[in-house]
Each structure stands twice: as structure tokens, then as C-alpha cells.
């Protein structure tokens, strides 16, 4: 073989370079990284055993969703502990696991999954407080269909009221055949 030294040397270099992500993580000690979700303080157990929740929480939530929305049931009896819970993601799960960033997101980010629960179900903030107030469309001027300052629902309703009152006042006979 011609230039065997160069070829073999090149192959070794290539292998080392290609395997960079593998040996670098091992060398830097990050290979053993595991997400470490923060469990809620003062709670000793979840609705089921820790192992079950770890591997099956998404299936449990699926089951709850179907039972509540489709079957109209509300109470869940724990198979591990026998106690009863309201089947509600917001009221039961998030009541204990109130810090999404420190619990849910830890594993979900690590596993690169993006569950869309929080698209609708209202999350709590990093401080564990429910996000009661969100600033409306003033903060998002791009969403305005017209440039004039927005008027909130109440004001709009009042305008409708005025129009309605005017109608009713001007036509006392409006009330049908009493």
C-alpha cells in the first residue's frame, strides 16, 4: 500500500475527530448527567409510586383526560395507596408541582420533549404563583387590527348598552305583547 502511514494516520485522526462528542463528554465528566427535578417540599408521595409516576405519568394524564372529558368522572382512586384525588391536571398535579421550571421542564428539556399541556392549562410561574394577570393587547400592538388605542371589553359592552337603552327608551311598546 502506498502512503500507508498517511492513510492510517488520517483515519485515526478522522475517528478521533468524529468521536469528539463522545470522548469529550466522558472526559469532562458530563456523561453521567441526569436531570434532577425538584420535588415539592413537605410532600411525601404522589398519586402513585415514584417509579410508576416516573415512567407512566404521561399515560396516567392521558387516562385522566379521557375519564374527565369523555366519561365525566372526576375522582381517581390511587392503586398504590388507595386514597382519592380529583382528576385535574391544574388543580391536583400543579397544586403540588407548582414550579414548572424546576420540575416538569427539567426532564422534558433533557429528553427534548415538548408536551403541549401548558398551551391551554394554566401554568404557575417560577415563584410558584399562579399567573393571574396577563397584560392584554396593549403589549402586543402588532396584533391590533387598527392603530387606535384599544378599548377593553367593559367599555365596548357599555357602548352596546347605551345603544340598547336608547332603543328600549325610544320604543316603550318594544316589550312584546305583555
Amino acid at each position, binding site marked *: 500500500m502506498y502512503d500507508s502511514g498517511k492513510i492510517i494516520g488520517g483515519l485515526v485522526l478522522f475517528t478521533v475527530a468524529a468521536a469528539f462528542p463522545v470522548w469529550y463528554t466522558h472526559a469532562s465528566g458530563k456523561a453521567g448527567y441526569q436531570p434532577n427535578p425538584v420535588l415539592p417540599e413537605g410532600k411525601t408521595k404522589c398519586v402513585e409510586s415514584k417509579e410508576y409516576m416516573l415512567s407512566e405519568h404521561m399515560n396516567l394524564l392521558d387516562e385522566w*383526560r379521557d375519564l374527565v*372529558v*369523555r366519561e*365525566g368522572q*372526576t375522582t381517581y382512586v390511587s392503586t398504590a395507596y388507595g386514597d382519592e384525588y380529583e382528576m385535574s391536571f*391544574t*388543580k391536583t398535579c400543579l397544586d403540588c408541582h407548582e414550579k414548572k421550571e424546576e420540575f416538569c421542564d427539567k426532564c422534558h428539556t433533557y429528553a427534548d420533549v415538548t408536551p*403541549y399541556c401548558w*398551551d*391551554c*392549562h*394554566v401554568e*404557575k410561574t417560577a415563584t410558584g404563583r*399562579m*399567573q*393571574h*394577570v*396577563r*397584560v*392584554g*393587547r396593549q*403589549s*402586543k400592538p402588532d*396584533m*391590533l*387590527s*387598527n392603530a387606535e388605542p*384599544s*378599548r*377593553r*371589553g*367593559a367599555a*365596548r*359592552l*357599555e357602548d*352596546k*348598552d*347605551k345603544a*340598547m*337603552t336608547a*332603543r*328600549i327608551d325610544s*320604543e316603550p*311598546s*318594544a*316589550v*312584546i*305583547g*305583555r
Partner: protein
Amino acid sequence: MDDSRRSFLKKAGLSALGIGAGFPLLRASVRALQDESEQAAPLSKQWAMVIDIHKCLQPEVIKTCIEACHREHNVPDIEDPRKDIEWIRTESFEKVFADQTHPHTQESIKQLPVMILCNHCASPSCVRVCPTKATWKREQDGIVMMDMHRCIGCRYCIAACPYGARSFNWQDPRPFIQEIRPEYPTRTKGVVEKCTFCFERIAKGMVPACVEACQKLPQGAGALTFGDLADANSEVVKILREKYTIRRRPGLGTAPNVFYVI
């Protein structure tokens, strides 16, 4: 045995055909009959609402009902009417009861505001067209429910509903909700929503939010009444017995469960 092999085979073939075609036909006809009888059988429970048009004329009553509902369910307030979401709203008498007015109807009557919401029909056209069963009629109490998890946003139901009771989320509604009630989920872009007769409150033995809100007003007592249509002693049945009531577009055969005292 004077039958030839030929005629024997003919008879055998015809018999096989008869059995093969006859049984499925029989089964189909039996099923069709069953379906019909199921439709005819009334539900053991059917929530219904009676709206007293006279008592719902006051702007205060209308506003209180709408606001209570929309606050309860995180319904956004969007200025653009093409994108707005409404579970309960008012519309002029002329439009609500288009088939009960005529060119000579008093102008004042035509313009009366009438509260409208999902009718929770006995035979809902939205349910028939939904390809994913994201909307369906609950057998236990007749509520026409929405499963937001399953809605794919095709909007067939909006096209099918003859009452305009449904709204589509053209955008993320959250920025348009003034104050989010964490107990009730918001919706996301791309799903259809509507009144659910407050199924979550009914499960706790409460009346719908709009009914509760207007009952608290002195002038709103009896404006909205909620109850079980299948229960002969319920408040709604009592009103329906005593007063003259109408439903929206009765000719369509959807059999609405929202009644209007006129």
C-alpha cells in the same frame, strides 16, 4: 332423483347467493330500526335553559351574564369581530328569530336584543359532521360537549351549526384574556369552542355561571332558568308548561334545548 347435475348446481349457487346477500341486508335493516328507536328514546336527563326575553332586555342583566360566563371560562375579548370568541352574546330579535319575523314586524321588536348561546340540541348537526368526535352529545345529561384535546380545527361544526354558536381560535387567545382564571384552561390556536352549559360547575351541583350571575341581580331574577327537561318537577318544565315559549329555527329539526319566553 331426476335433477341433473346442472340444475342442482344452479340451485346451490342461488341458495348461496341468497344467504350471502340476505343476511347482511337483514342485519342492516334491523340496525337501522334500532338506530331510529334510539333516537326516539328520550335521554334520562337533558339539561335545558329557558330565557325570558322580557327580563333579559336590561343592559345590566345582559352584561352581567356575558361577563360572568366569559370570566369563568377564560374567553378572550378580541376587538376584531371576525376573530372574536363568544360563548354567550346578544343578537337582534330579527336575526335570532328570522323565521318568526316578517316584513311588517314592528321595527322595535326586530331590534330587541336576545341572548343566544349553544342550544345543546337534541339532534345536533355539529356532532354529525365532526370527523374526530371532538364534539359529541353526552348520554348522561344531553350536553353537547367539546374535547379540545381532540379538535383538529377543521371547522365543519361551525359550518354545520345553524345558530352561529361556535367560535374558532384564529390565534393564541391568551394575550386577549384580561385576567386568566387558573382553574379553567384557556384554549389554544386552532380549536373551536362554545358554551358547554358549564359542565364543570354542574358536576359540582352548581348552576351555570350566567344563570347564577343574573339571579343575583334584583332585576334579573328568572331571566335565565336552568334545569332538567326530563324531570317533570324541574323549574324549566314548569315554565314550559305555564308560558308560551319558542325555540330557534324549529323547522331544521335540531330540537334545541334553549327555550325563549316571549
